[in-house]
């Protein structure tokens, strides 16, 4: 088990190295540099030249890369060109938002998806089944940003049930510790702040959850259908066990295996959705910030963030693998 983890983490190193090279080349290929982004209309060619020189963008790419690597080894990701703040700071300020959002989305997706998928399978061919399958299809096919707009228009603009943007009501002046607003609220016992933060998570969470929800419903349904045909379920029935026990212990526990896999994949993939959702809901996370940074040519931020994301992605999958070996005794990580 331990050796497995270590090996996986070691595998990370070459990946990151390769990734950094790819990124570096790509970034430097981008047309235009940060200088214009910084100066806007007012920049004169001279000013731009000066900035390029300052940023060392006129040096040969190898030297630039060398400098980058030296910093990476010191675990220093440099500072953002546009905000002049440490990239790590920027990350720590924005990542928690995305994490909260992702968790919310997954909670919604799993909380609704698995029961729904199970019922659909149990009531195969009946209304609920068709409804949930159809619904999930649409969930996959509806553009996230459009869904987000609709949700806002209905629940925020018209009904006014939920706030339409941001992570928390600024007038609360809540205390920041970890930048996980909900957690902070609990830790500082600012219950209203925590509640408000949660409240702000609902709509974006729903929007972001649409695709994973759809997929989880489908996978759960499929795998439950498969398990229901298994002999051991028949055995369980033959034992006269209560429906409840049969469902929990014999059907779901087995049906969850493929679902667990997909959940891992989805969590990793959610970041893409986050880019859109965060933009629509003016939600401060890394998704939208990354998109900006690309247009701003904020090289350090892009390099740093994408590297970190890659690490996180691998870690998520590692965790999934481990949890997988927890659910399924036949899988033993070596």
């Amino acid at each position, binding site marked *: 088990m331990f050796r497995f983890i270590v090996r996986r983490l070691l595998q990370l190193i070459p990946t990151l190295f390769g990734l950094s090279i790819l990124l570096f080349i790509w970034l430097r290929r981008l047309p235009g540099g940060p200088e214009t982004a910084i100066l806007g209309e007012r920049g004169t060619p001279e000013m731009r030249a000066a*900035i390029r020189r300052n940023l060392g963008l006129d040096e040969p790419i190898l030297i630039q890369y060398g400098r980058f690597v030296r910093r990476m080894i010191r675990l220093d990701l440099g500072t953002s060109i546009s905000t002049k703040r440490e990239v790590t700071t920027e990350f720590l300020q924005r990542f928690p938002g995305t994490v909260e959002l992702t968790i919310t989305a997954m909670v919604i997706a799993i909380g609704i998806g698995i029961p729904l998928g199970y019922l659909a399978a149990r009531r195969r061919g009946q209304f609920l089944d068709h409804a949930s399958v159809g619904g999930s299809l649409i969930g996959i096919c509806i553009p996230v940003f459009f869904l987000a*707009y609709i949700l806002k228009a209905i629940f925020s603009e018209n009904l006014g049930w939920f706030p339409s943007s*941001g992570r928390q009501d600024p007038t609360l002046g809540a205390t920041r510790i970890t930048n996980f607003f909900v957690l902070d609220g*609990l830790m500082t016992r600012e219950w209203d702040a925590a509640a408000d933060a949660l409240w702000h998570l609902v709509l974006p969470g729903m929007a972001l959850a649409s695709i994973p929800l759809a997929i989880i419903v489908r996978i759960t349904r499929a795998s439950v259908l498969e398990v229901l045909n298994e002999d051991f379920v028949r055995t369980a029935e033959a034992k006269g066990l209560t429906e409840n026990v049969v469902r929990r212990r014999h059907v779901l526990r087995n049906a969850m295996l493929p679902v667990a896999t997909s959940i891992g994949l989805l969590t990793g993939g959610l970041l893409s959705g986050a880019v859109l959702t965060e933009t629509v809901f003016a939600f401060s996370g890394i998704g939208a910030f990354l998109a900006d940074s690309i247009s701003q040519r904020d090289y350090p931020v892009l390099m740093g963030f994408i590297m970190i994301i890659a690490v996180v992605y691998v870690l998520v999958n590692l965790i999934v693998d481990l949890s997988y070996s927890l659910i399924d005794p036949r899988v033993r990580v070596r």
Partner: protein
Amino acid sequence: MRASRPKVAIAAVAAAALAVAGCAESDREGSSGNSKDTLVFGVAGDPKVLDPSFASDGESLRVARQVFETLVRPEEGGTKVSPGLAESWEPDAAGTTWTFKLRSGVKFHDGTDFNAEAVCVNFDRWYNAKGLMQSPDVTAYWQDVMGGFAANEDDTLGESLFKSCTATDPTTVSLAFTRVSSKIPAALMLPSFSIHSPTALQAHDASNVSGSADDIKYPAYATEHPTGTGPFKFKAWDVPNKTLTLERNEDYWGEKAKLKSLIFKTISDENARKQELRSGGIQGYDLVGPADVEPLKGEGFNVLTRPAFNILYLAINQKGNPKLADLKVRQALAHAVNRQALVDSKLPPGAQVAVNFFPDTVEGWNGDVTKYEYDVEKAKALLAEAGASDLTLRFHYPTEVTRPYMPNPKDLFELVSADLQAAGIKIEPIPLKWSPDYLNATTSGDKHDLHFLGWTGDYGDGYNFIGTFFDRQKDEWGYNNPALFEKFKQADSTADPAARVALYKELNADIMNFLPGVPISHSPPAIVFGKDVTGVTASPLTDERFATAEFKS
């Protein structure tokens, strides 16, 4: 065993959380809640830095305008130079030394007295900038206005316009300049010339822009301790929540702010801002889409329209295509574009077709210049004369950007190119991302024939418009017109305002004859406030003062 392992994990986490909870302390004093003395205002982007000396982006300046004050400031709702921290000012005979009489009894937020000394400390700080602080990335506006430093570290920098600052007595300061310039005193209204508290600058060593060339780090002052004399004090910048909180400066020298606290909340998406206003999360926002003005008014929101203090033009690059060097062709282009239709259909109410390269609110505007009415036939004829009937032009336009003078570039492009095609000109559309791709492509090199660009005035002087565009050879236009350039120099160095204005009139006439590009429109940007918010006056320079804002009961 197996089943219980996850439970254990959860328990552990919970325990940890509680442990932390034990030591974590709420550091907020009685939260104001959503009471009627807090205004949350939606803005399009995070401010980049809180020290306006280093800022060039609108959002940073918006904050600076509430926290800091300048020697002279634009009159409320206008562009004329009016008293700020200085009650009066006058140039000497030569027009190179200006003496300012300062307001007395003014204190900075940190309690330091404001006086002539303080002013000089500030100017000297900018003038004596060293190292990275000379990077155009850091002090863009100073370089734009003054052109250089005491000791230039980069040969591309020129001689500084600013020479010295002398405090004759606590309330009298005189600034000496190396030459006469149209920029003085108007340019001193720019927030970048805000006066900071010397003690605070000292305490947080504000001038220490550290780090290596390729990762500049701002000093703490610029991100956490901006200290000015303005009606609002900086309270907190909550980056993770994209909000910046200011609170009332209780011992402001003038009339105190009506709001207890003012919060700027970043919502980059235009629709998102609108939706948030409707759902009550914010009580106002800037950069209202032209299409939203009427609906929002209809719903009873206070939509303020700023006097149009900008220009949108169609630039023509004479280097790009030799044919464009031919005046007839340029005239043909001017005649081919139906500017009236564009203004009517695309721009908010109050927008006008431009006849000069600056709006008539600026002195020196000239109504009596060659105008080019919409006339497709004439355009065709001119093209034929110039033997350019089969003209193909590369038309650059920016994507996903909204400028105060240019609501939806893509839409405008589609209209204009349709017009040009109607006149028999072939168009090769080249859409680029506004920043940096578009700006790079259009302001350097010669790969561009036509493109949109515009300008919002920094202060109420014509030179800030036409000077910026035409006073020297630029890749944007790709022409060389020594006579014109000479005239600009002359105007810039004319001390007597009246005489200068007269020159501006001539310049406008010349420009419209020479027709380096086609001025299209001046459009009034809108800013909206909640139904019960009053007291704010829209400013052509986007210098809105929230101090006067209040909720009417």
